[in-house]
């Protein structure tokens, strides 16, 4: 339990700084520090057990199906790292309190820091690779926030993005690697995985898994060729650099190498990948560090170099290498954190980190200078300080290693690396704290408050103590941590200053002397280096990302260019090609159905249809003509429905068609009357080809269907058989609509209702904004006849309206037994009203219609809905219908069906929707000009010679 608590504490604690900042900066820092301290205490409480060789575990099921569980384990390795993270973290918190200025939002800083700390602790304590991955990515994210903390600096933003991109890349690779590892072992538990080393190394998946995981480790630990992000992350505030780049984040990669060492190490592949990368990076980074004029830049590359050293040691795949690696982790964490902090102090006090502008500070800030010097000497590998010990061990191992059968290469390279290391370490001392003091500082620098120098000073204590008494101070820790890495018995080894006068010592001394000499000839060395091109990582990275983004933008925008033509062409082509491939990919037999003979009149009508289709394409630019042709097609389709035994369809089709045409005419009034010729000939040819293929496909498909009988009896036999006895109607289509499949119809009228609402909302909106301006300045694009409401039509509609309504009622009532029904009746009534609107105009008719069409729609849907709900009262499912025969005197026997009530709903919705749509559309025209006369007809002979009286 408390293992989880150690991990969770920083996360939970992350809530505190944001709150405590209200109580002041000290309270904020104190709260943050307490959280870390508490976690550290909890960790240290396990020290006895860990040093006794126990492995402490905690386990909760989280996502067992995936093998992702909340499992933690604490062994020597985990203890070491967790201790470093929390311990150095504590010092950093203290240091940061004094480092951050009043302008910096401190609460946010500590929140990010704690989040990061929690993620790091999670990484090192996880016993599940998937859980580890989660924490791993969290370190990337939280470090992104920390590095970008100073958002106003472009370097901060770029550095943060670069760090996120590189470590994100590694993280994703590692996901794949870890999953592969899990596939091999059958478990994602680390404690399981590290037991299966041989099995893993024999698996064909070993190489890909290893490479992917190493990608994760190397990016995180900034190994070549991913070293470039780390220096740019130095734009972060120094406490962040000190924390992330000495003790924690960059060590995560190293940690993972150590953690998975039993599972992955020991093969040639491992050696060549890991050791080589480490060795190369070590030398290269040290060389670069030598010439960095930015204090933090120097430290950054020295970090890369030292991490590479550890990488190299682990890469050897030998227990001794592992021991040395672990030992160096401890040593490096202590002196490097101290160095970063002193660099921060120098920056803080002098206002610059540029080595060229610094010098002679020892006299001004002796405490800082002493701490820095000790730490730097340790980094250089000067005896009696802890850095010396591990450098010796490294050189020893290197000298004993062949590379691809070539002896000495490794040793030489290691020695050169050590030499460079000495040189830049001395430079940190010599060029900053000694030498010529610059002419003037803005304000004379002096040692900072104790809160700022105590943390590095504390870190120097182990540097010296371990340097003097390695076995006593660091021995147990190294032993228990190395034991955890190696996963077995450790070879004999001695942590001691003096191992006798041997090749290693010679190499070490040569490195020291050579390093000092190189610093002496620094200017010449620099000139030598200037001769080579030095690609600037940041610029390259930014330009790579920018060009990727630009390319992505070009490609995306070129693809998604907002062209409806493209969308349509692709969609139709997809359907055609997909359909064709599917058709050809499956078995197809010719049908055996006997066809219906084609009467000459049918052939004629067909010819008209084909002609109309061709004409439609040929004349589509003349929009009014287009509508006329569509009218022709509509008539033919309706006639076809009648001919082919579908009277209901014919009725519906023809009435819908006319309403649609009227709708289009209303819209066309405002639209251009001609479609410009815009497509090039090839494009038209392409469109024609797509269209022809689509036609062929759809026609072919229906032809195939028409020529076969149902292989399996269709469900509509049931509908035919039960229409009268079960549904109470003889028009089976209508019974299907209002009863068998009444729910479809319910949805359908809702579609109509919504359409009306949407149209209303759209047109209502059009009466505001730019649309209304355009409407008001709209000039008819054709000459207009003078009489708006011709007399003959007005008179005719006066007669036709009541008759049409009667016909509507008739069609409505008979629908259940004969072609007709609520929908068609609704259309007929709507058409009747439309005639009235067309004859006498919107204004006149609108004033006489007492019905609110909106309400009609609402009532229609409700009527249909409540008819359905009514069945619930009878304990039946929604829309269950009932009918009965009622006999009344005089009237006789007639049928009453609930389906009729449902049909009333349909009727009301249809009338309401059509009228809302059309009435609103015509309302639009009213904004264009002076209002139209409110008289029913323009030419009214009754008004001759006498003042007309107000009508209606």
């Amino acid at each position, binding site marked *: 339990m408390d293992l989880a608590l150690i991990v969770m504490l920083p996360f939970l604690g992350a809530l505190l700084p944001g709150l405590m900042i209200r109580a002041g900066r000290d309270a904020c820092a104190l709260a943050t520090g307490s959280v870390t301290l508490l976690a550290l205490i909890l960790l240290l409480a396990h020290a006895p057990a860990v040093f006794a060789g126990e492995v402490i575990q905690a386990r909760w099921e989280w996502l067992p199906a995936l093998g992702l569980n909340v499992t933690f384990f604490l062994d020597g390795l985990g203890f070491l790292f967790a201790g470093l993270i929390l311990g150095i973290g504590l010092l950093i918190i203290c240091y940061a309190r004094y480092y951050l200025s009043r302008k910096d939002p401190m609460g946010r800083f500590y929140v990010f820091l704690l989040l990061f700390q929690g993620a790091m602790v999670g990484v090192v304590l996880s016993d599940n690779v998937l859980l580890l991955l989660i924490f791993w990515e969290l370190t990337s994210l939280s470090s992104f926030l920390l590095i970008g903390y100073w958002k106003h600096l472009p370097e901060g933003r770029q550095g943060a993005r670069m760090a996120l991109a590189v470590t994100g890349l590694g993280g994703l690779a590692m996901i794949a690697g870890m999953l592969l590892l899990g596939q091999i072992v059958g478990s994602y538990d680390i404690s399981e995985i590290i037991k299966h080393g041989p099995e893993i190394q024999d698996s064909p998946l070993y190489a890909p898994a290893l490479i992917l995981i190493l990608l994760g480790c190397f990016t995180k630990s900034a190994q070549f060729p991913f070293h470039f992000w780390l220096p740019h992350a130095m734009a972060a505030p120094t406490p962040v650099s000190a924390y992330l780049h000495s003790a924690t984040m960059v060590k995560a990669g190293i940690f993972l190498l150590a953690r998975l060492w039993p599972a992955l190490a020991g093969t040639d592949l491992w050696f060549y990948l890991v050791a080589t990368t480490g060795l190369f990076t070590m030398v290269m980074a040290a060389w670069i560090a030598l010439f960095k004029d930015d204090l933090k830049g120097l430290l950054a590359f020295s970090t890369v170099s030292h991490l590479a050293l550890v990488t190299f040691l682990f890469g050897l795949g030998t227990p001794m290498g592992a021991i040395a690696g672990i030992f160096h982790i401890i040593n490096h964490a202590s002196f490097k954190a101290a160095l970063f902090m002193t660099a921060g102090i120098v920056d803080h006090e002098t206002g610059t980190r540029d080595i060229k502008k610094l010098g002679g500070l020892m006299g001004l800030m002796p405490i800082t200078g002493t701490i820095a010097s000790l730490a730097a000497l340790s980094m250089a590998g000067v005896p009696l300080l802890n850095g010396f010990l591990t450098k010796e061990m490294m050189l020893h191992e290197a000298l004993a290693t062949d590379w691809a059968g070539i002896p000495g290469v490794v040793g030489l390279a290691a020695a050169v690396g050590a030499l460079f290391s000495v040189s830049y370490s001395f430079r940190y001392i010599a060029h900053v704290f000694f030498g010529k003091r610059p002419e003037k500082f803005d304000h004379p620098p002096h040692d900072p408050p104790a809160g700022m120098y105590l943390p590095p000073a504390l870190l120097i204590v182990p540097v010296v103590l371990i340097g003097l008494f390695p076995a006593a101070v660091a021995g147990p820790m190294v032993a228990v941590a190395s034991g955890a890495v190696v996963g077995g018995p450790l070879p004999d080894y001695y942590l001691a200053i003096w191992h006798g006068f041997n090749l290693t010592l010679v190499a070490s001394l040569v490195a020291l002397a050579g390093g000092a000499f190189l610093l002496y000839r620094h200017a010449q060395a620099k000139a030598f280096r200037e001769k080579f091109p030095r690609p600037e990582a940041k610029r390259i990275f930014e330009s790579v990302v920018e060009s990727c983004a630009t390319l992505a933008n070009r490609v995306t925008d070129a693809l998604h260019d907002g062209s409806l033509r493209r969308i349509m062409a692709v969609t139709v082509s997809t359907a055609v090609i997909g359909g064709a491939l599917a058709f050809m990919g499956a078995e197809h037999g010719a049908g055996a159905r006997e066809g219906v003979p084609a009467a*000459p*009149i049918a052939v*004629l*009508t067909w010819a*008209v249809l084909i*002609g109309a289709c061709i*004409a439609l394409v040929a004349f589509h630019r003349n929009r*009014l*003509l287009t*509508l*006329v042709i569509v*009218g*022709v097609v509509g*008539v033919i389709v*309706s*006639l076809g429905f*009648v*001919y082919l035994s579908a*009277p209901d369809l*014919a*009725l519906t089709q*023809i*009435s819908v*068609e*006319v309403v649609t*045409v*009227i709708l289009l*005419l*209303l819209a*066309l*009034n405002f639209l251009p009357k001609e479609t410009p010729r815009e497509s090039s000939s090839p494009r038209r040819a392409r469109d024609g080809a797509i269209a022809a293929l689509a036609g062929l496909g759809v026609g072919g498909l229906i032809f195939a269907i028409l020529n076969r009988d149902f292989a399996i009896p269709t469900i509509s036999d049931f509908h035919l058989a039960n229409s009268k006895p079960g549904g109470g109607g003889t028009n089976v289509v209508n019974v299907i609509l209002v009863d068998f499949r009444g729910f479809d119809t319910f949805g359908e009228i809702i579609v109509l209702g919504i359409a009306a609402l949407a149209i209303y909302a759209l047109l209502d909106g059009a009466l505001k904004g730019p649309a209304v301006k355009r409407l008001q300045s709209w000039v*008819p*694009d*054709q000459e*207009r*006849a003078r009489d*708006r409401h011709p007399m003959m*039509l007005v008179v005719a509609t006066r007669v036709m309206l009541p008759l*049409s309504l009667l*016909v509507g009622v008739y*069609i409505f009532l008979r629908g259940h037994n*004969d*072609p*007709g029904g609520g929908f*068609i009746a609704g259309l*007929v009534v709507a*058409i009747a009203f*439309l*005639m009235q*609107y*067309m004859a006498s*105009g*919107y204004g006149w008719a609108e004033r006489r219609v007492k019905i609110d069409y909106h309400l009609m729609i609402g009532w229609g849907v409700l009527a249909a809905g409540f008819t359905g709900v009514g069945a619930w009262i009878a304990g039946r499912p929604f829309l269950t219908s009932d009918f009965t025969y009622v006999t009344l005197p005089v009237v006789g026997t007639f049928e009453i069906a609930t389906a009729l009530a449902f049909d009333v709903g349909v009727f009301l919705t249809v009338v309401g929707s059509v009228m809302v749509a*059309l009435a609103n*559309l*015509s309302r639009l*025209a*009213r904004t264009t000009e002076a209002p*139209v006369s409110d008289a029913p007809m323009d030419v009214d002979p009754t008004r001759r010679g006498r003042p007309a009286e107000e009508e209606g």
Partner: protein
Amino acid sequence: MIEIALLIGFFCFAIALILNLYRLAKGPSIADRVLALDTMVINGIAILILYGMYEGTAVYFEASLLFAMVGFLSTVAYCKFILRGDIIE
């Protein structure tokens, strides 16, 4: 006898349809085409009625009535559009 008469009727109205189609295709004005379409609808109704007689069913009556109504309405709409642009004003 009626059979033969019906066939002749079919034939006549079919020819009429073709003639309408000729006018529809030729135009020249949109009003010509509207007139042709209107005539087509009426001829179509005639064919429908003949077909009802041929099949001995009255089931096509509503369709005919509706065709008449709709044909009228759409002709008026087209013409009103030609005359005024705005068909409901």
